[in-house]
């Protein structure tokens, strides 16, 4: 194939994924229940609309610990001893678009519309 063909193909892919990323970030479903998963198992579920005041919750896993800050309407990882700190830098979670993930500790925090089913079987796409 010609270089120009490849360049066009890659530019098209770039536009497609950029559009997809924008579309996903603009779309936010209502989610008021924060579910904290370790290894795919929900260890705690907090209804953010029922919460009176801020509280912290520390999760201990084999990999280390994450200090989770919970406030009415939002949740974030305040501190973690993982090497990359992606979960901390994710900031406040206020909608169900993308979860906060700490891969080294296999921790996932998601906002969902309702309480927890045993395991997150259905994702936002298949709904």
């Amino acid at each position, binding site marked *: *194939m010609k*270089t120009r063909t*490849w*360049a066009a193909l*890659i530019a098209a*892919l*770039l536009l497609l*994924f*950029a559009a*997809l*990323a924008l579309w*996903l970030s603009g779309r936010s479903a209502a989610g008021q229940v924060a579910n904290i*998963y370790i*290894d*795919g198992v929900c260890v705690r579920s907090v209804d953010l609309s029922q919460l009176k005041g801020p509280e912290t919750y520390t999760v201990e896993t084999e*990999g280390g610990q994450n200090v989770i800050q919970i406030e009415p309407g939002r949740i974030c990882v305040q501190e973690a001893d993982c*090497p990359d700190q992606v979960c901390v830098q994710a900031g406040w979670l206020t909608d169900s*678009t*993308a*979860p906060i*993930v700490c*891969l*080294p500790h*296999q921790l*996932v925090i*998601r906002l969902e519309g309702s309480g927890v089913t045993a*395991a*997150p079987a259905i*994702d*936002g*796409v*298949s709904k």
Partner: protein
Amino acid sequence: VKLGLANIITVYAMFTLGPGDTLCIPLARVFLGSVFSGQMTSLLYSLAGGLLCYLVMLLLRRILTVKQIWVCSVLGAMAHNIGQMAVAILVTGTAALVYYLPVLMVSGILTGAFTGLCAQFVTRQLDKITAHKQSAR
């Protein structure tokens, strides 16, 4: 999100050394990386990404010319992200991680193009040097 400058070496090796020698580079990097960071779970993510990237680049190597090395790098970077994402979804059992994929893809294409262009220049310059040495002999 990292720039992945070390991948210049892998891409360069893919076009100058054989497939077997090239395979050793990501394997050694992944292994040493997880040993020294002490994160054995990250070994799994990196390995899946590295191997998928390697396979895609191996296939592309046959149909691309020396001037199209950057294409190989871009598609390799995308394969790397897909591999890591697939393992992350399996390990955490969280399909919603797919939401991160578009962002990863955009960054992968951009950084892949950059590292690919670097590898292309390296290949071209080193070819010149070897050609020069041979003509001087």
